[in-house]
């Protein structure tokens, strides 16, 4: 039986870490993820876990210690946000290239500047090509559930994995949550048993080679394959998780998409707000729906294209900008997904929204649907690169 609790998203992640009791955690404080290593070091200092906690002097060193520890054969974790995530960016690439399944909890936050501590997705979007699996949660429950699934996924394909949630919105807000019994968690996650590691008896190992042009691209091709393979693993692990908890997860979530004419594609807590907008519009007889992306990496291109193939128009909602002068990061990926899957009929627009914690209300999303309705009626998209609710 699940345990009914009330926890913030950060607390839920820390609690999942405690239940898993990993070997090593290296972490550095940064708002809004700071609470995670805080809670965790309390568990360490009170003997509730026997994880070795390294209070490093920077996020760069947090990821560097995780790389060293995981390569040595230890299950290693960290947590960060915002500037901390991009300060470790170089090491994120190394972790993925070394095929080290480190687990990183990210409470997502805007990047400087201007300096801002509130939520958007600029941090994770800036490292989306680092080679990490990235799952994004809408709620505290999802953050917890994703974390319990993370190591199974990462370790199966030997890729590091980020478990992302919206800073403050879910990281600090307290919600009802159903926790899994610790013995069930331990049985589900299992032990980390790498095939090769630095401290393996009688088998020295060398990690982090210099690869000349004769070998480099093959290493990258193998990484690409692991990311492709991760899609099925995410689904399999989710299926097992559903058996244990009754809570089902996919690469994407489709909400009222069955007969939708207009849809939004969205990530994170704003999906909850957008679902309410969809419900209200449905009550008015409007055929609208929503797609929430849970797996940003691997990117569920085929699933998104299939889900959108019958809509007349849709908006991709980006809580980050690419500053390329024409679209946000998810806008670009969804457009590529549609074209690659030969779904070119629906009209697409792209909104940049909610940057630096700008509030996203039900009315904000209703405004997007009103715009989509106009596009469906006229067949004209107008400007496809739009900012939502911004003072011009």
């Amino acid at each position: 039986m699940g345990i009914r609790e009330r926890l913030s998203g950060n607390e839920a992640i820390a609690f999942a870490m405690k239940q898993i009791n990993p070997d090593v955690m290296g972490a550095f404080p940064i708002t809004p993820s700071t609470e995670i290593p805080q809670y965790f070091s309390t568990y360490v200092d009170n003997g509730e876990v026997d994880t070795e906690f390294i209070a490093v002097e920077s996020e760069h060193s947090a990821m560097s210690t995780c790389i060293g520890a995981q390569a040595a054969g230890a299950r290693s974790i960290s947590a960060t946000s915002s500037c901390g995530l991009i300060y470790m960016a170089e090491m994120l690439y190394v972790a993925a290239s070394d095929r080290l399944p480190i687990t990183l909890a990210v409470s997502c936050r805007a990047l400087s500047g201007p300096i801002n501590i509130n939520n958007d997705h600029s941090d994770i979007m800036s490292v989306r090509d680092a080679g990490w699996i990235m799952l994004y949660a809408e709620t505290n429950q999802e953050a917890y559930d994703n974390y319990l699934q993370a190591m199974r996924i990462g370790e199966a394909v030997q890729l590091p994995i980020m478990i992302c949630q919206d800073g403050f919105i879910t990281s600090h807000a307290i919600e009802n949550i159903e926790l899994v019994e610790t013995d069930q968690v331990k049985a589900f996650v299992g032990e980390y048993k790498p095939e090769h590691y630095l401290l393996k008896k009688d088998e020295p190992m060398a990690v982090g080679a210099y690869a000349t042009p004769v070998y480099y691209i093959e290493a990258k091709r193998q990484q690409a394959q692991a990311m492709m393979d991760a899609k099925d693993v995410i689904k399999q692990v989710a299926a097992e998780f559903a058996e244990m908890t009754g809570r089902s997860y996919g690469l994407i979530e489709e909400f009222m998409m069955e007969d939708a004419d207009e849809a939004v594609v969205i990530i994170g807590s704003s999906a909850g707000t957008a679902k309410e907008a969809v419900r209200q519009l449905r009550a008015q007889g409007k055929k609208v729906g929503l797609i929430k992306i849970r797996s940003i990496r691997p990117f569920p291109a085929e699933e998104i294209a299939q889900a959108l193939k019958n809509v007349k128009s849709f908006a991709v909602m980006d809580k980050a900008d690419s500053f390329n002068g024409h679209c946000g990061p998810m806008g670009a990926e969804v457009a590529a997904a549609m074209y690659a899957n030969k779904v070119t009929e629906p009209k697409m627009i792209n909104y940049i929204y909610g940057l630096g914690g700008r509030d996203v209300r039900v009315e904000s999303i209703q405004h997007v649907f009103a715009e989509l309705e106009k596009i469906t009626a006229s067949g004209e998209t107008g400007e496809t690169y739009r900012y939502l609710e911004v003072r011009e």
Partner: protein
Amino acid sequence: MAYNLKENLMKEDRLAGGHRMCAGCGSPIAVRTILRALNPEDKAVVCSATSCLEVSTFMYPYTAWKDSFIHNAFENAGATMSGVETAYKALKKRGKIDDTYKFIAFGGDGGTYDIGFQSLSGAMERGHDMVYVCYDNEAYMNTGIQRSSSTPHFADTTTTPAGTVIPGKLQQKKNLTKIMVAHGVPYVAQTTFVGNFKDISEKAHKAIYTPGAAFLNVMAPCPRGWRYPSEQLMEVTKKAVETCVWPLYEVIEGKYQLSYTPKNKLPVEEYLKMQGRFAHMFKPGNEWMIEQVQQEVDRNWEELQKLCSL
């Protein structure tokens, strides 16, 4: 047990030959000597910062390292080894491993004095049971002889060329060994290759077998950057010691101890004149540069002697 060079050389090399380091380079000599200071029955994990050493010894699919080895990046050998050492503690505590491992990180002066300084400082402050070895060749040699904060005063490098207006590097060398002492770690030493390698071998053994964090600063000349004939490597390090440009000393639990006092301290010219990077200092009209370096060396030497007499 008294040090014996012959016996020491009978130990198996833990860095295999055939790596791609230059002839006359100090770095692989430092590595082999330090690894020889490990008790043969002990295992080790070695880390190297990105450097000549790393790219020349671990070019896929070949490795010269007989022990487990990890390279991560330029600036984080300290933190990377912190992670490896912590994993050892965690796995040992959980009964998953039973061997005795020692942890030795190598970085050049660029990866140690400069870009890896924070990572090193963090690792030393946290007191991980490891040795960090700086093989100090006084410039960014891997990228082509650019100045570092370890480059000595007036040296000609590709980013401090001895020009018509600016005569080489304007700043003095940073004293990293003292900064490491200030971290309060149990063992810090400065050494290089002299005589029968007794000094470096004994210091390496102490560093490895002192519980907690230890730091070794090893002068490891670079024939390309310093511009001396390869075969004169040992002559260069000897002159560095005899002029007191690079004094040999160790600091045990905060107590400074000189390892060697030259009988007749040689003038700095004896060291400088062997190396092309200081050639411009010997041009007529530049005598002041040599005088200034002499004053700096004298001041540092006096200060060190005072610290050692405390």
